[in-house]
């Protein structure tokens, strides 16, 4: 029983990280109806930004709260700038092009970042700075609550509540929802859709930046291809929840994290990655719109 609860805690912690990345996929899809395949590589760049900032400031062996905050901020900033640049230079010129062109461009940007990353950062893995010490915070009936898990949970919870507030309680968020629902009507009301799209990329990318620091803290080995698998899983999470739906992305990510943890614990870690694609296949067959998504016929 203790084991089971322990696995649930680990699964939720893993799921929150997937959620931070899945939100970026789903927000961009919601507003542009495109899959931003470069998103997982923005996440990778975030991890490297944190790595270099820590080295530059000499805090890579200085675990603690201030290191966590510093790395989070720099990673978010770097990801936001990169996301903005990708949108501005790769996607915006194709705003009126057929969707396939944008999709191929997204894959191109992704490959560019992955292999450009190998040139710039080197292909060999680097050790992520020590963000904080991992120690047992609470120990209730033999269930351990470790500082890493608590940090992951708290940081992602704050980020998601912040996003929730932004989307549903602010004027900017209202405009984001309006552009996502019908961008030409939104522009009739004075919204500049380009500006809202840029902002969406900034927010989604910054969330990936948060995710990269949390992952780096838990699994301190980073390399330029680190975004591929986690990006795919986050993408599956977004599809599982219903792509374009913010609440769905979080739900899908938690389900992904929990089931992955359970598979590793009770079946075999060999099936860890197979699970994600198994879920994708099942959801595409039985509920293609996702758990919270609405099925809509593509209008042409």
């Amino acid at each position: 029983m203790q084991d089971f609860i322990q696995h649930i805690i680990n699964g939720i912690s893993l799921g929150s990280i997937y959620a931070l990345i899945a939100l970026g996929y789903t927000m961009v899809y919601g507003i542009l109806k495109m899959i931003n395949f470069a998103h997982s590589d923005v996440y990778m760049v975030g991890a490297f930004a944190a790595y270099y900032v820590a080295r530059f400031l000499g805090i890579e062996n200085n675990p603690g709260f201030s290191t966590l905050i510093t790395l989070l901020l720099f990673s978010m900033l770097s990801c936001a700038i990169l996301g903005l640049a990708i949108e501005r230079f790769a996607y915006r010129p194709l705003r009126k092009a057929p969707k396939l062109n944008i999709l191929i461009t997204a894959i191109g940007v992704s490959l560019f970042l992955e292999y450009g990353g190998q040139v710039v950062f080197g292909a060999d893995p680097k050790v992520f700075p020590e963000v904080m010490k991992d120690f047992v915070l609470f120990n209730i009936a033999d269930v351990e609550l470790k500082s890493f898990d608590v940090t992951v949970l708290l940081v992602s919870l704050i980020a998601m509540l912040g996003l929730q507030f932004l989307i549903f309680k602010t004027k900017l968020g209202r405009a984001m929802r309006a552009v996502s629902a019908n961008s030409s009507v939104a522009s009739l009301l004075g919204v500049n859709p380009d500006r809202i799209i840029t902002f969406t990329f900034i927010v989604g990318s910054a969330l990936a930046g948060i995710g990269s620091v949390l992952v780096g803290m838990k699994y301190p080995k980073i390399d330029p291809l680190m975004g591929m698998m986690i990006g795919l899983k986050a993408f599956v999470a977004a599809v599982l929840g219903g792509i374009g739906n913010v609440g769905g992305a979080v739900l899908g990510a938690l389900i992904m994290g929990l089931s992955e943890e359970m598979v590793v614990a009770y079946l075999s870690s060999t099936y860890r990655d197979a699970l994600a694609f198994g879920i994708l296949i099942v959801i595409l067959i039985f509920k293609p719109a996702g758990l919270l998504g609405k099925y809509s016929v593509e209008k042409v």
Partner: protein
Amino acid sequence: MSSVLLNVENLEVFYGSIHALKGLNFTVNTGEVVSLIGANGAGKTTTLRAISGLVPVRGKIEFSGKDLVSVPTHQRVSLGIAQSPEGRGVFPQMSILENLEMGAYSRSDKAQIKTDLEMCFDLFPRLKERLQQMAGTLSGGEQQMLAISRALMCKPKMLLLDEPSLGLAPLIVAQIFEIVKKLNNEGMTILLVEQNARMALKISHRAYVLETGRIVMADSAQNLLSNDEVRKSYLGI
């Protein structure tokens, strides 16, 4: 009824190789209700889309003496052009209040926005009863009321209404046209696009008849109502 608010000259629109508008010339004066009537595909909606900047155009669109052609859609709102689009275009996943607040997006005069909200509720009391209800759950008539109110929240100098009667029961249509007339009595300039020519002409000062991208008739609404050709083709008499 003197100064020209909107002046359109040689307006042309192409959809690919289709020549949708073939050189329109028309004006709307301050304080007028002007209708564009015509059959499906005549170019009525395209004309409104052109004035709002949703389609690329050739020709001249002058509003308050300023050339609009190079002004992007979202900036035309602050110049004083608001549109209630064809099919209403309410945001279904947003509440009525949020839809109305979207109308005031480019404004920052908070006190005045509040007054204008109250004005919309006076016009359409039904909206006030359901402020927190999602717009997607409203009836067609209520959605149309919301779309008009939302356009009014832009505080326009000229209101563009695209087919406000579309798909609505006759009783609701009458209500909506009553409101349009009332808005005009209070000073609002209105450019109305309608297939329901009889209703449109009844509340308009002047009207233009469109046929396949051209203006084929232009006259006062009263004259058009008694014009034989219009009666036969558009009023079904």
